[in-house]
């Protein structure tokens, strides 16, 4: 016998003794305890089934002749119960005159029998033999269960998107045998593939996010140039803001209704869209008009570039994204590049410090806008969301435009004023739709870098539309801003990130 087999045979077991005779039961319990096992003694069949349902036992020593529920009934009940059928039962019988009852018990599933006037050596031998068989069977069942677990893990991977924690292989991998090693290798391969896919996902989202930041920022950046064109043609800013919101709403809603029909709005969605419209479409527009009258445009742009830091801090405070020195450095690199360009380009006009401080409200509002975008209703498409928000913005701006006498009626002849309005409305709609996608793809902190691309794009659009000159310094700044994107990196995928492996040969 090997050491392991010997240990398994003699290891302490939990033994249930069922005997209606106190004397016989106690004698048996004493003999079993002397073998090093733990015993529980009950005096009837009903009591035996009760305790078997409450506590685990390794073996049952069962008297046959008992009042009320006899040993046969206990055996039948145990074999009918999935949880109890693997527990070996040794019937205790007066061998001299109960051969038939012993034979019947074995037919009913008893493992062995023991005479009432047993010899301790026979008791030990029969118990050890039964326990050894039971433990071997337990090991077999464990092994089969672990194979099932491993098979289920393979099915999880084969079945589609998975996360390594769903494989539940910890207990199988803890085995010290070839099956355990197989589970360890299987699990580590799954984890390695998962990590690789997660890194690839981050790279893809960084690239996609960078393109979206440049695209959305470039489109947003046309606004200052259009504003200067409008100003040169004495188009009232509030009227322009109102009509461009109307244009954006019409474009987005036409697109979304044409594509997916009328949107199904819930009250909760309307509350969100109203808040967003009030902040971005109304308050931000009004404050921009007021502050622009007192602070130089390039200074407003530089102050606006601080949006990245504001979103970074707000996202950290609201636990939306984890802050890191690397991301902070990336934001700082972009801000420094834009600040240098703006400072060099500055006209040297005197700016009121109080108004400069007030100008900080603008990036703060845009930061809230960026964060709000990450909470937008997911069941509404981006065009629908932007369309309704811009319609509400137009509604809120209308009384202010009327009060300022800034509301003009567009001409049917479609002159420059209408062209500027149309361009501003279309660019706002397109940029906001892209920005919504950007926030979902890369998270609010990465998206906030749109402030840099927007500022640089503003300079580029000024060059294209107004004939302004783009300095080599601005080109250099653009390189630093893009380097900043790679430091900030998009928000990492959460724990719910899943990957799908495509199996070869799956028809």
């Amino acid at each position, binding site marked *: 016998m090997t050491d392991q087999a010997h240990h398994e045979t003699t290891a302490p077991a939990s033994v249930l003794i069922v005997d*209606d*005779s106190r*004397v*016989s039961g*106690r*004698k048996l319990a004493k*003999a079993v305890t*002397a073998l090093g096992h733990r015993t529980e003694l009950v005096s009837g069949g009903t009591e035996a089934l009760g305790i078997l349902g409450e506590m685990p036992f390794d073996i049952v020593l069962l008297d046959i002749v008992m009042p009320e529920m006899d040993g046969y009934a206990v055996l039948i009940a145990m074999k009918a119960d999935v949880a109890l059928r693997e527990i070996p039962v040794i019937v205790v019988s007066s061998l001299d005159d109960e051969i038939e009852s012993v034979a019947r018990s074995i037919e009913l599933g008893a493992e062995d029998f023991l005479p*009432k006037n047993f010899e*301790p050596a026979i008791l030990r031998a029969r118990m050890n033999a039964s326990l050894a068989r039971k433990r071997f069977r337990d090991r077999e069942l464990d092994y089969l269960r672990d194979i099932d677990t491993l098979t289920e893990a393979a099915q999880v991977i084969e079945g589609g998107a998975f996360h390594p924690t769903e494989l539940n292989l910890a207990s199988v991998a803890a085995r010290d045998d070839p099956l355990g090693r197989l589970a360890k290798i299987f699990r580590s391969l799954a984890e390695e593939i998962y990590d690789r896919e997660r890194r690839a996902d981050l790279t893809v989202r960084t690239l996609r996010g960078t393109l979206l930041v440049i695209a959305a920022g470039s489109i947003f950046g046309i606004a200052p140039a259009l504003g200067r064109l409008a100003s040169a043609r004495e188009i009232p800013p509030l009227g322009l803001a109102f009509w461009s919101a109307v244009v954006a709403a019409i474009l987005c809603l036409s697109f979304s209704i044409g594509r997916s029909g009328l949107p199904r709005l819930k009250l909760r969605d309307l509350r969100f869209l109203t808040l967003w419209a009030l902040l971005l479409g109304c308050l931000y527009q009004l404050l921009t008009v007021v502050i622009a009258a007192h602070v130089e445009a390039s200074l407003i742009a530089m102050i606006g570039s601080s949006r990245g830091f504001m979103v970074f801090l707000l996202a950290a405070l609201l636990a939306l994204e984890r802050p890191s020195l690397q991301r902070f450095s990336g934001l700082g690199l972009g801000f420094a590049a834009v600040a240098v360009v703006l400072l060099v380009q500055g006209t040297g006009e005197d700016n009121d410090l109080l108004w400069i401080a007030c100008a900080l409200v603008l990036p703060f509002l845009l930061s809230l806008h960026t964060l709000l975008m990450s909470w937008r209703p997911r069941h509404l498409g981006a065009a629908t969301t932007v369309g309704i928000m811009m319609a509400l913005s137009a509604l809120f701006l209308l009384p202010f435009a009327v009060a300022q006498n800034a509301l003009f009626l567009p001409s049917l002849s479609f002159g420059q004023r209408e062209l500027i309005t149309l361009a501003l409305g279309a660019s706002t709609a397109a940029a906001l739709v892209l920005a919504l996608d950007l926030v979902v793809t890369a998270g609010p902190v990465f998206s906030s870098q749109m402030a840099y691309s927007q500022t640089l794009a503003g300079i580029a659009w000024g060059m294209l539309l107004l004939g302004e000159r783009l300095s080599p310094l601005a080109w250099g700044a653009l390189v630093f801003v893009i380097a900043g994107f790679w430091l900030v990196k998009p928000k990492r995928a959460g724990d719910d990130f899943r990957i799908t492996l495509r199996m070869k040969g799956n028809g």
Partner: protein
Amino acid sequence: MGETMTSGHIHRAALKRLFEVLGNDVEELEELRGDYVEDAPALARRISEAASKGDWTALRIAAHTLKSNAHDFGATRLSELCAFLEKACYHGGPADADALAEGIAQEEEAARKALLDVSFEDIARPSPDA
């Protein structure tokens, strides 16, 4: 005969064997004797009651239990009487159940008294042949 039996009712060799099964624990043997002395008269009463009612199942179970207990404590005669009664119950019930029950009651009382007279210190002592 005198060395192995006590008052003709208790077989000392059986007691010695029970003592060994209990791990040579005198205290445990004393306690087990207490259980036997407490249960045996009750079992004899149950046999008498079942016999008078003609309840062969109750009679068989009580006889079976007393048979085993008596056998463990060396009350060989009592055990044999119970075994006879138990077997008769399997075959339609004894014709003279009351008389058999009365015999068992008498033998149970005699064996119990004899058992109480046994000194377990003597049982625990190694036999001269050992």
